[in-house]
């Protein structure tokens, strides 16, 4: 009998029992899914983006479906870091999944404060920084759009935490590699690629945009080729471990991201349609590896075979 394949992987210092994580903003705070899936089988849970204070979010319509995906402009609605740590985290600590908190602020000081707030919380395994939000000290330009600003931001967070820092890169920049390199210089341990792709949808009859706030983030299978390209570039050129995100729905998708250079993956929009998606994909992945006599998932990382 063939031994079961080794599913363990690591994203820099973050060790995972398997490469399947849930993407920020698509898994609520985690507990919403407890009765719909085998939560204990998931390698890592990335929380909804958390800010220093609760945020109410945008008016409806906040989401709309597009071909092969969806647009969202939820408006960063969240319960705030304190409510998460006090009310949600205790319910999750019984699960073996690594808890990664996705954090964002509108100033560097807010990011520093968030890092200090989670530093003494043992159940939090790592920080994922959402840098796709407006920097009010720089006229609202996103932190993740300017290499210098991003490097300083990551360095400031680094001063305030001993936990692994993962920076989530936006695809809406000329060169994600330049931004990824800035994150590395600032002291990031790993990168998540990619955040949603800025998009828009319009109804031809009513002449209205389908989102109240006009534009939103595109996610789902429609963005997978963009995500694969960025994972490939960033893994090759930045030299930090990458967590791959973008339209993942099957074991084959996972393998493609691993081959492109991802060390782990995050399932996002697929969860809305299939709450059990990560566990189902994990089972498929075991079969995929077993069928091909592949001993370990880690053997696939960056193992793309280019043409001669």
């Amino acid at each position, binding site marked *: 009998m063939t031994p079961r394949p080794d599913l363990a992987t690591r994203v820099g210092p973050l060790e995972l029992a398997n490469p399947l994580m849930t993407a920020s903003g*698509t*898994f*609520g705070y985690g507990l*919403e*899914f407890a*009765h*719909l899936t085998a939560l204990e089988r998931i390698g890592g849970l990335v929380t909804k983006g958390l800010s220093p204070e609760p945020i*109410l*979010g*945008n*008016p*409806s*319509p*906040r*989401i*709309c*479906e597009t*071909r*092969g*995906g*969806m647009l*969202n402009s*939820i408006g960063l*609605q969240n319960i705030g870091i304190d409510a998460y740590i006090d009310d949600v985290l205790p319910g999750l600590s019984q699960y073996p999944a690594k808890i990664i908190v996705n954090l964002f602020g509108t100033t560097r000081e807010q990011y520093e404060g968030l890092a200090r707030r989670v530093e003494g919380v043992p159940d939090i395994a790592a920080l994922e920084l959402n840098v796709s939000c407006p920097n009010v000290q720089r006229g609202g330009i996103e932190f993740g759009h300017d290499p210098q600003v991003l490097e300083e931001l990551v360095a400031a967070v680094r001063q305030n935490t001993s936990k692994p820092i993962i920076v989530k890169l936006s695809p809406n920049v000329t060169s994600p590699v330049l931004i990824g390199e800035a994150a590395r210089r600032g002291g990031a341990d790993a990168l998540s690629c990619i955040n949603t792709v800025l998009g828009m949808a319009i109804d031809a009859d009513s002449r209205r945009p389908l989102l109240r706030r006009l534009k939103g983030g595109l996610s*789902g*299978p*429609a963005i997978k080729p963009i995500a694969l390209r960025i994972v490939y570039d960033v893994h090759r050129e930045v030299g930090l471990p990458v967590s791959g995100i973008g339209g993942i729905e099957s074991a084959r998708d996972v393998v493609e991201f691993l081959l492109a250079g991802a060390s782990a993956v995050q399932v996002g*929009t697929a*969860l*809305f*349609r*299939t*709450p*059990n998606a990560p566990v189902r994909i994990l089972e498929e992945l075991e079969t995929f590896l077993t069928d091909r006599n592949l001993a370990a998932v880690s053997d696939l990382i960056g193992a793309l075979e280019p043409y001669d």
Partner: protein
Amino acid sequence: MQDAVARVLSVTEHPLPYYSIRLSLPAVYDDAEPGQFVMVQVGDRLEPYLRRPFSVFDVAAGPSGVVGELLGKVVGRGTELMAKAEPGDEYRVLGPLGRGFTLRTQGRSALVAGGVGSAALLLLARSLAAQGGAFDFYYGGRNQVDLPCHLEFGRLAEQSGGRLVLTTEDGSAGAAGLVTAPLDEELARGSYDFVYSCGPMGLLKRLAELAVRHGVDGEAALETAMGCGYGACLGCAVPHVEGRWALCCKDGPVFGFSEVRW
């Protein structure tokens, strides 16, 4: 709440664009509350990608398990595919979801449906009729086609000691005009203790205003776009009077008239 595979037993075509589908459902649906809903995955396609919400129109436990019925209206690609379902087809169905109506069997109620919003009111009408809660059923549409299953609603209203009131904007069935007109008259007479409703947002807003003006409380099942149906995507925000956003899927779809900032 359970994510299960449901098999289509039969499809009934009402005058288009309406259709209803009978499905085999897990036992958990035997306890479905009036006003609750399900999220149906229409095939394994990229379009439609997300599941579609449907009210639990009807549900009954029989010797071969629980049978549910969904009443739908063709509005886009997903509902168009659903209308073409055939016996034996299988759909993934997540549910029952959300908060249903509060059952009030004391006094007299008005049930008000705008078009396919009636899908949220059949189980309620059945429960009221079975438990001695008298009600009149107001059913409004643009034309006579917009009133699917009105005979069944009329039968239940009569069984409860009430009547069916039909209105159409073009006068092709019942009184010509909006469903709010006859309701307004009866509310002014003090005929009702409570109003239950489901339909387009504009209708529900007018109903809530009317009811409040006449000092009558009520509930509305809201129809919004939904991404997931169970509180994960935060896509179905409804303005709450407390100044926050409520989620239609989790805090609703049934809200008290005074809970929503219309």
